């Protein structure tokens, strides 16, 4: 028996672009509607078997980019290559690409089986082969017993699975998913996320998912492309995007963040020091940053990367500690989020894990507290 093919040793081909050929190659693509550029000079490489998420708010151009991949929009300029073939001017019905629509777009006058079989019939496959493929797909999405139903007789989650089965039926090289979980309620969405990832890994198809939900993107994606106003703001693995944002936009878009302005006072190869009036203290960053003395820049830190204490903690470098008064406490169960008013008037948020039950000694309203953080807990942002 043949052995199951081994997964490539490095499952992250984007880390080694020199030796890996991208599967989808988007080159300088711009799409203008009238004078407005919905997508502006986007270049993007996506590798085989990736689950790539395009994340952005409404009007960020993510859907337009997806529709250009499907062929419903033609780029104003630039090229799109899929598996080495130029697809820029190929009609949607001749592309080896299938799409799962946000509204699911299930044909209301056809049964579930007919919906799934539609694409196969267009390829004039033999009847028996179509039937076999349809039942295989319905089994995959656990809808074997629903084949004879019409879409309106299904629940939202079932419709979503029919849409997925239909899009997978033709064994597309590339599957595009437009807000695949957007219409589901929160609990169903969380279950379906994992199912989607499982199916993707099982079939090895390349997925490109458009979503506005950062949590969804973090859960699903091998890599995320954050889009803003028609441009790609950052491409990276979920952890990179969260921990090492490259700009104020990305830092603010994903998760919650405290951001302060500051001026570089020391610029050494192994560290820099930033003076921040807003924060009321110096920031000591334990690694070198590409900047110049007296440069104005921003420093961002996630609420969970900071620590609260009643006593002034011991810190080195005479930095990374400030104090303020607790203004608000939001108790969320697993964590509590404290809003601290610093002496400068700036408000920051600090979250602390509620490790013990009903702690009577917990920090409470109106208390003066000290806030500290580690040398490399924050991100220095120059744009």
């Amino acid at each position, binding site marked *: 028996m043949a052995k199951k093919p081994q997964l490539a040793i490095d499952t992250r081909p984007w880390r080694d672009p020199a030796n890996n050929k991208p599967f989808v190659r988007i080159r300088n693509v711009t799409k203008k509607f009238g004078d407005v550029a919905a997508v502006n000079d986007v270049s993007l490489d996506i590798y085989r078997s990736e689950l790539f998420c395009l994340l952005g708010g409404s009007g960020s151009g993510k859907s337009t980019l997806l529709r250009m991949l499907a062929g419903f929009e033609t780029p104003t300029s630039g090229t799109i290559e899929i598996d080495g073939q130029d697809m820029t001017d190929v009609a949607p019905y001749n592309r080896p690409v299938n799409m799962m629509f946000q509204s699911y777009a299930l044909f209301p006058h056809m049964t579930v089986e007919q919906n799934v079989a539609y694409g196969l019939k267009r*390829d004039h496959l033999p009847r028996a082969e179509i039937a076999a493929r349809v039942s295989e797909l319905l089994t995959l999405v656990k809808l074997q017993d629903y084949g004879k139903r019409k879409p309106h007789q299904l629940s939202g989650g079932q419709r979503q699975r029919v849409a997925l089965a239909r899009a997978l039926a*033709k*064994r597309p090289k590339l599957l595009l998913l437009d807000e695949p979980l957007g219409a589901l309620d929160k609990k169903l969405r969380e279950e379906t996320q994992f199912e989607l990832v499982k199916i993707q890994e099982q079939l090895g198809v390349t997925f490109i998912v458009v979503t506005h939900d950062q949590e969804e993107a973090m859960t699903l994606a091998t890599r995320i492309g954050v889009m803003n106003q028609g441009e790609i703001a950052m491409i990276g693995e979920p952890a990179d995007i969260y921990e090492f944002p490259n700009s104020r936009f990305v830092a603010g878009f994903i998760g919650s963040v405290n951001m302060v302005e500051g001026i570089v006072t020391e610029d050494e190869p192994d560290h820099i020091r930033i003076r921040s009036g807003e924060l009321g203290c110096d920031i000591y960053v334990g690694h070198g940053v590409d900047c110049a003395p007296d440069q104005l820049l921003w420093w961002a830190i996630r609420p969970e990367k900071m620590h609260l204490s009643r006593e002034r903690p011991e810190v080195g470098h005479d930095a990374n500690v400030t104090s303020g008064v607790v203004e608000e406490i939001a108790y969320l169960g697993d964590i509590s989020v404290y809003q601290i008013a610093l002496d400068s008037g700036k408000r920051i948020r600090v979250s602390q894990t509620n490790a013990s039950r009903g702690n009577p000694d917990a920090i409470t309203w109106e208390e003066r507290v000290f806030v500290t953080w580690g040398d490399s807990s924050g991100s220095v942002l120059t744009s």
Partner: protein
Amino acid sequence: MTTAHDPTIPPPRRLKPWNVFERRLARMGITGRMLVLAAPVLWLLVFFLVPLAVVFGISLATKQFGRPPYSALLSTEEGTVQLTLHLSNYIRLFTDNLYVAAYFSSIRIALISTIITLLIGYPMAYAIARVPDRWRNILLMLVILPFWTSFLLRVYALTGFMRGNGVINQFLGLFGIPPLVMMQTDFAVYVGIVYTYLPFMILPLYTNLVKLDGSLLEASADLGARPLRTFLTITLPLSLPGIVAGSMLVFIPAIGEFVIPSLLGGPETLMIGRVLWDEFFTSTNWPRAAAVAIAMLVVVVVPIMLLQRAQNAVVEK
């Protein structure tokens, strides 16, 4: 080597018949759009636009005996083409009281009937929009039913109702009231228009009123407005689009109405549609009839189309 099950190899694509057909058309420079547009455009040009031009042309001719019963605009005399235009028909329209009176009378009758229809139709539409669901469908069906039955027969039903020895007068007779003369009066024409066009008023009003959010009325009452004030300040302004749509649906066809004035109206009931009909069928003066039609087009139809366009533009915004 790739195996037969390699998912990256697309399944064989056979040439589909539609593709061949489309490609052949495309090679001839024919796009799908042109094919879709061709039939309706040609039909409407030949059977809608050209006829209007013909009417205009004939309105500039004069009546003559023979076939066709109007003078030719173009004639060839001794090798030269001569164009003869007569403005006499139009001059007659302005100088003969009959025509001017008929235009004003048509507009008056249509306007008054529309207002009466609105006054009757609004409470009906309101009632239908407010009754429980199972009643609503029955009432709606009752409104739609006459719409699908013959217009002519409904006017005929009215004559049986209103004539000298008709149902109404027989009923009044039971109480010793002498019979009323209703037929062949302007009153009968008003009744006829209201009766036949009532469904056209109710339906758009209903679709508007049924969408009215009940919580708005509750909010108004909660803020201290009595029912009448709530109606005047909330319901009425919000139903304005329905009122306009319904009124247009009654007013427009009522102006050109022929059947109702000729079956229910008296000899003195002047309506422009009837004047045109008589000009054509009774006096067989085709050029005059054509001139009446053109005047009607300019005075009535064009303003209505402009009004509708303006209304649509507002709605789209």
